[in-house]
């Protein structure tokens, strides 16, 4: 396959196939470092605190949260949407970029997919625990029962159940199918022992047969074809949670594509945040390079700008609509009691990513790291703004009220970080962070060694 010499190599250093194996396998060998243990401990503490907060919520009731008769959703659903959004990058990278034949995805898709799965697990927690009667949560599944009651297929929350669980399942399958060959690689590097047996089991008996590879590629492509609309559908359905209502600030038709774009935006930001640290921590600088950074930052600008345009569109159409409730909702966002949340959102989401128009910034790891955190904060506030400021002052001023979170809500949020990082630390220890086989497959077209040769 011909590659233009103008293109920037994606993999630097003199990498041979076995060097790739070696490099990526390296972090899994030897004793884990202090950093790893320290990180895992912190994550477990956070997770424990989160579990305690969840216990309090379930035991005492949702009253332990800062919600009230007017504001039925607060941090819980904000965090849900935020985590789901983050969970969009992985599948976007592996599915949509695969369809668009973007080679740079190969270095980051594995960890991004893992993050997707962990983030979706964190996200999925919130719709469960925000229920007043968690033990009866199984009512949301359409199972035959003596009362002949099914479920309400009109409800976006029910669609969510289907969407999130399908998304989690498909992402998991997609991720694992991609992992099989690499687990095979690990298996074959290990000497005999229990570890080898476990990896042998997990590798599903991978042999690297050309027939398998052919089927694997075919399957991956179609899974990607399915996952692409699936990614869209998930955040679309999440946006339906709000957009189907009549609440001003929630009910607007631009929500589906805008939410999807925002999700990819935040997901990429999170991937960047983590990958910039990970590549350093486990010496993968040659595989995650400035070329990757630049490509990802371009997507950040694109999606960030789409989000920005959506904000402005909403604002303009709210005025244009001539509907007093709509107009008030947006004036209240910008200048009401939660004005700070709105302007944090605007600054972080619309202004900061525009810095990536400058080539130096979008190729700087340090700058990207900072901006990606800004984006994560901004996207959290976007959901907060949508949920809380829309609800706290809706139609009847008599019911207007204010919201602030309690320690329980904060605790649960911290807990999800704990869960996420616990899983992430385990992942980088026990699984190859970069898709070994996929990197090898683009080595000839995208590595410094081969491109320099001018081949």
């Amino acid at each position, binding site marked *: 396959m011909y590659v233009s010499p103008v293109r920037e190599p994606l993999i630097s250093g003199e990498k*041979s*196939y*076995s060097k790739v*194996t070696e490099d990526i396998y390296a972090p899994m060998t030897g004793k884990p470092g202090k950093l790893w243990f320290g990180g895992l401990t912190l994550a477990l503490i956070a997770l424990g605190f989160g579990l305690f907060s969840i216990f309090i919520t379930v035991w005492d009731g949702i009253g332990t949260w800062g919600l009230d008769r007017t504001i039925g959703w607060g941090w819980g659903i904000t965090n849900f949407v935020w985590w789901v959004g983050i969970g969009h990058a992985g599948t976007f990278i592996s599915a949509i970029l695969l369809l668009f034949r973007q080679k740079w995805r190969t270095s980051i898709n594995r960890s991004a997919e893992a993050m997707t799965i962990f983030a979706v697990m964190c996200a999925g927690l919130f719709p469960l625990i925000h229920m007043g009667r968690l033990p009866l949560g199984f009512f949301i599944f*359409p199972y035959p029962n003596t009362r*002949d009651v*099914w*479920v*309400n*297929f*009109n409800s*976006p929350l*029910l*669609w969510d159940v*289907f*969407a999130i669980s*399908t998304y989690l*399942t*498909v992402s998991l*399958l*997609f991720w694992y*199918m991609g992992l*099989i*060959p690499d687990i*095979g*690689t690990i*298996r*074959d*590097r290990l000497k005999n022992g229990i570890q080898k047996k476990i990896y042998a089991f*997990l590798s*599903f*008996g*991978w*042999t*690297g*047969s*050309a*027939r*398998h*590879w*052919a*089927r*694997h*590629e*075919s*399957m991956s492509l*179609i*899974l990607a074809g*399915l*996952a692409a*609309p*699936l990614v869209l*559908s998930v955040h679309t*359905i999440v946006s*339906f949670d709000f957009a189907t209502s009549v609440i001003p600030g929630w009910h607007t038709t631009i929500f589906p594509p805008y939410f999807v774009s925002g999700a990819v935006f935040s997901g990429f930001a999170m991937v960047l945040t983590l990958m910039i640290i990970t590549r350093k921590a486990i010496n993968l600088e040659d595989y995650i390079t400035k070329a990757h950074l630049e490509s990802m930052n371009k997507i950040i600008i694109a999606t960030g700008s789409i989000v920005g345009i959506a904000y402005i569109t909403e604002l303009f159409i709210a005025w244009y609509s001539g509907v007093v409730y709509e107009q008030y909702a947006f004036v209240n966002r910008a200048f009401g009691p939660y004005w700070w949340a709105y302007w944090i959102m605007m600054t972080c989401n619309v202004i900061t990513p525009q810095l990536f128009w400058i080539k130096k910034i979008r190729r700087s790891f340090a700058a990207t790291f900072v901006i990606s955190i800004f984006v994560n904060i901004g996207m959290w506030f976007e959901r907060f703004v949508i949920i809380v400021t829309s609800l706290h002052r809706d139609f009847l001023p008599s019911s207007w009220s204010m919201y602030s979170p309690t320690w329980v809500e904060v605790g649960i949020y911290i807990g999800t970080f704990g869960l996420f990082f616990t899983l992430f630390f385990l992942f980088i220890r026990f699984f190859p962070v970069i898709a*070994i*086989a996929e990197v*090898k*497959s683009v080595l*000839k077209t995208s590595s410094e060694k081969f491109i320099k040769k001018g081949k």
Partner: protein
Amino acid sequence: MQEKAFVSGYYLDDKDLVEGIRALQEKDIEIADVRTPFPVHGLDKVLKYRRSRLPRAGFVAGAFGAAIGFGFQAWVFTEAWPLNFGGKPFLSVPSFIPVTFELTVLMAAFALVFGFLISSKLGPGADNVIFDEEVTNDRFQILLEVSNGNSEQLQSELQSAGAEGVKHHDV
């Protein structure tokens, strides 16, 4: 798989592998399997594999998911217990779109993944024979099945087809 024997030869570059295969093919030597560390571009064409039937399986399963998804929802809302939700019609088609879609994708994905695993005889606990552990690292391996004890002949064929190392395996 008893009483079988194979001869393997490996290459260190995918290009050499393809050339080796071509050389063997010219001699009408049947290639039992080729094993590579990554999907080698165009290898399936060289080996004249049929296009996989997985897409078709995916389509059928997806269509099934869609039918079940839509049909079930429609049945619940019009036959099982038609409830009035917010004045919406019982057969509220737009509301059925999301679940129908999700089930379509889910079923298709299951069909693809399980189709892949089953047709490739892969799965938890699958105990396939691995002839060379370096195949998952950097070796491109051609396997030829030994019949009537022609192992040595096959080994030399492989060598002449440019294999870097040749070996006999009994299974």
